[in-house]
Each structure stands twice: as structure tokens, then as C-alpha cells.
């Protein structure tokens, strides 16, 4: 179970990373296409017209999808920002309970976010909403990815809470301690 969950978070964040790399490649192709056009015009050839249609829209969707897919992995890496003054000041007997309560609250809020996002994705599906650009993209695809990412985030927070209640140390806490100690 532990291994399956960790692999799931890891797979999602690598998918997010690959998506960011894909945006970079698309933008690079767009720039090269524009340069090729300029070169063609300079040499009196007809422009090749190598552009990626609706790149701005597709890029924005890819960005949003990637961000939500990466949320759980970012938690595991201890990289979401928070103020730890109080948790650090508490004695070792009380700190895990506050940690678990905070995880529970965060999981509840993430649950709300997932539900809200799912409603939006369902709406887009029912009304068949598509984007405005040259290539109409069904909005349910990126919004569905957003919902899935938020769901996974909620799962990872619940996972961390259960680990704390059982007396273990969740991944985000270990990672935070590692960062503070200088890796």
C-alpha cells in the first residue's frame, strides 16, 4: 500500500514535469518556425508559415493540468510553504497531534476543492464547452486533469494524517527536516 501510493505521487509529478518540458518544446518550435519564416522572407522565398495554432491556449491548459498533477508530489517533497514556528516549539508528544490535525484540515479543504472542480468538469462535459481558439479543445479534458490532481492531493494529505496518527513520520515532514538540516 505504502509503495503503491508513493509510486502514484511520483508518477504524477513526473507527468507534470514532462508536461512543462512539452510546453518548452512547443514554444521552441514556434520560435524556430518564426525564425524560418524571417529567413525565407529575407531570401525572397514564400514564408513557410510554420506556426503552432492556439499555442497560447494549449500552453495555458497544459500549465494548469501540470500544476495540479504535481501538487501531491510537491507535498511529499516538503516544498509547500508553511509557518512551522508553533509545531517546532511544541514538545514531541504534542507536535504529531497538531501535525495530524493540520493535515486533516488541509485534506478537508482539498476535498472541497476536488468536489468543486469535479462539478465544473461535469458542467463542461454536459454542455460540451470547448475553448475559443482555432482548435476547439473540450474543456472537460484539462478540467478533468485538474480534478484528478486535486483528488490525489487530498489522498496524499489523508495519507500523511493517518501516518501521523499511527505514530509514524510522513514524507513531507522528513523532507522538511532534511531541508532545514541542509540536505
Amino acid at each position, binding site marked *: 500500500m505504502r509503495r503503491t501510493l508513493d509510486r502514484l505521487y511520483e508518477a504524477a509529478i513526473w507527468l507534470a514535469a514532462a508536461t512543462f518540458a512539452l*510546453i518548452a518544446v512547443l514554444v521552441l518550435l514556434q520560435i524556430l518556425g518564426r525564425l524560418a519564416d524571417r529567413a525565407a522572407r529575407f531570401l525572397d522565398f514564400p514564408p513557410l508559415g510554420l506556426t503552432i495554432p492556439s499555442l497560447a491556449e494549449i500552453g495555458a491548459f497544459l500549465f494548469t493540468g501540470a500544476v495540479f498533477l*504535481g501538487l501531491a508530489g510537491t507535498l511529499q517533497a516538503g*516544498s509547500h510553504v508553511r509557518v512551522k514556528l508553533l509545531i517546532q516549539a511544541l514538545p514531541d508528544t504534542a507536535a504529531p497531534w497538531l501535525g495530524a490535525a493540520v493535515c486533516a484540515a488541509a485534506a478537508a479543504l482539498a476535498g*472541497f476543492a476536488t468536489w468543486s472542480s469535479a462539478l465544473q468538469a461535469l458542467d463542461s462535459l454536459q454542455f460540451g464547452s470547448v475553448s475559443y481558439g482555432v482548435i476547439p479543445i473540450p474543456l472537460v479534458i484539462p478540467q478533468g486533469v485538474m480534478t484528478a490532481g486535486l483528488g490525489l492531493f487530498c489522498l496524499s494529505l489523508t495519507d500523511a494524517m493517518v501516518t501521523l496518527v499511527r505514530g509514524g513520520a510522513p514524507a513531507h515532514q522528513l523532507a522538511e527536516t532534511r531541508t532545514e538540516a541542509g540536505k
Partner: protein
Amino acid sequence: MEIATLAPLLLVVLFGSLALGLWVGFALIAVGLVAMLVAAPAPASLVFATKVWGGLSVWDLTALPMFIWMGEILVRSRLSSDMFSGLAPFTARLPGRLLHVNVLGCALFAAVSGSSAATTATIGRMSLPELRARGYDDRMAIGTLAGSGTFGFLIPPSIILIVYGAATEQSIARLFLAGVLPGLMLAALFAGYIMIWATLNKDKMPPAEPPVGRREAFRAAARLLPVVGLILAVIGSIYLGIASPTEAAVIGVAGAVILASATGALAWADFLESLRAATVTTCMIAFILAGAAFLTVAMGYTGIPRELARAIGAMELTPYALLAMLTVFFIVMGMFLDGISIVVLTVSIILPMVTAAGIDPIWFGVFLVLVVEMSQITPPVGFNLFVIQTITGRDIFAVARYAAPFFGLLVLAVGLLSLFPGIALWLPGTMLSR
């Protein structure tokens, strides 16, 4: 519910959840949710997804992962060690000598990285051991690094300015250009302070380094030329209007990959690690932005920002008095919150009041960055302090004491920027727009 009771309730929810250790993004969502449940006619469930979706699926934000990635690649290259050998010979004749490497190195690195923590860590790991080995005053070495490390946010590319621009719908290209001159001014202020300090404290300076041959010095400096070229290409293409910030950032990523692999310093594993690190940082920032997008709308329903703007308007403060008040407020906030959280909270609550006072939003972005830079070096929560504590093992309060003069210089810079707004607004005004 009356605003007079709602506003304190929301403040308690915000600071209470932050103090308990709830992640910043969730704290923003929690405050937004309470505000919506109490004050809004619309159901929170639909508003949340719509606003978060609308706030994040913005093309301009794709510049964020790209600029972060570019910095992450260069951190893993030989840039930082080249930086010390390339800059050191040229500071040998200035009063304060190698202490200037901290300022120059941070300014140069800030121009390829948008993050203060990354700038501090990269320059600090290289310069602090060198300075200590040569007998420089530890307090001054650490103080200059803590102060100069904050350049990362001001000198473009700047993560904070991308976040501010996306949240306020200002042009990121213009914001970037507005940061250039104030960044250089700050570097000049820091360098000037080092010279004065070194002249007054001759007894604390170590004996002079053996002189480096001119040819050797230029050879070492020449190794920095490709990076300088990359900086000029990225900033220049934005200035000339040839490339959007995202395109410039992707050029930067491509250039960084070429530079780092040409020096044989970038293995495939490093490349993947840089991509993963950029992903983690982007997701962290974007989650705070998501919380802020929801909070901004929720606050709009409560009417608190409007009321605040009206109350401040009724006080008939001069713009200087308003800015002085805001500076103090931000310094206090900055002791407990990180820069991005300060920016997003400001945009949700304070911006209507600022625009009502007739302050230019581009100028205010640069002002905000300067104040956020201060928050990096004020305890108990200051990211540059954490980074330097990690490198040196000194506790954050000691580091903050060493950095105090540079905090003062940041306050001075805010004063200069307020008296002469042209420092920020002149360069974007000359920009060749498309």
C-alpha cells in the same frame, strides 16, 4: 454580518491557521471559504473551481516554470565557481575587495534566476568558504550575502513580478524592465556601503591578496561571457519586443542547456533533477496563486477591500504617508510570511486602495518587490536567513543581525524610489512595444 465583525473574524482565521502550521495555499482557501459562507450570495462550490481555473489557465504564467527551470539548470553548471574566479580580480582595488564578489555575483546570478533563495544559496556556497579562508570578517561576509541575495526578486527575470503581473493583469515585460534600474541602484548602494565600511574598519580587513596577472584575470572573466550573453539575449529580446516573456524564458532554458552541456557539467541525471526541481517550485507557487484567486473573489463579496480603500481615502493621506504606512505594515507581515504570500494577500486586499490613491500599478509592483526583499532577511521567518543558516550553521537571528545594515539600505532604496518614481518607470517607458 457587519464588516466590523467580519474583518476581525477573517483575520483570526488567516493568522490562526497560518500559526498552527497550515500550508499557505490552504490558509487562503480557508479564509475565502469562511468569507463566502458568511457574506456571499453565490454558492462557494461553483465559484472556487471557476476562479481557480480562470486564474491559472493564463498563458503568461507559463513563463514561471521556464524561468525557474533556466535557473535550476545554471545552478547545476560550473557557473558559480567560474563566477568567483572571474569577478575576484576586478574587485581587488576597491575598498572592501572580495566582499564585492557577493554583490556582483548575486546581481549577475539574479539576472538568470528569479528566486532569492536560489541566488543566495548558489553564490553563498561558493563565496563564503573562499572569504573565510582568506580571513575576511565573517559578519560582513554573511551580511553582504544575505542582503545581496535578495536581488533575485528584483532583477529580471523575477518570479515575484510574474506572480504580481499575472494576478493584477499587468504586462510582465514592463514589470521586468521596471525592475532593472532599481536593481542596479540597490547593487550600487550595497557596494558603496561596503567601501565605506572597509575604509572605516581597516583593522578588520585581511591583508591584500597576491595580485593576479592581467592575462589570467581576463581569461577567467572570459568564462563568464557566455552567461552575460545569455542574460542580454533574454532581457534584450523582451525589451525589443521580439519575444514574449515565455518565449524569452524558453530561449533562456535552451541557452542554459547548451552552456551547461558545453562545459561538460550537465549529465542527463542533472538535467532531469533540474526539471523536477523546477516542477516542484512551480507547483508550490501555483497552489498559493490558486488560493489567492479564490480569496480575491471572496474578499470582493465581503466588500472589505472597497471599505478599506474608502476609509483610507477619507483619511486624506498624502501618497508618501500612505506608502510609509504600507511599508511598516509590510515589514511586520514580512517577519512572519514569505514573499509570494505577501504579494497575493496584497493583491486580494490592498490593491484597490492603492489604485484609488492614484499610484501606478507597475511602480507599485517594484515597490512591493523591494518590501518583499526585506521580508527575506527579517526573522523569525525569512527565506534567505534559512538558506544562510543551512550554509554556515549560524542561527537565523545572528544572520539577521549581520544583515541589518542591508535592511536599512533596502528601506533607503524604498525612500529613493518613492521620491523619484522615474527610477522604475523610465525604462519601460522607452520600451519598443509591438
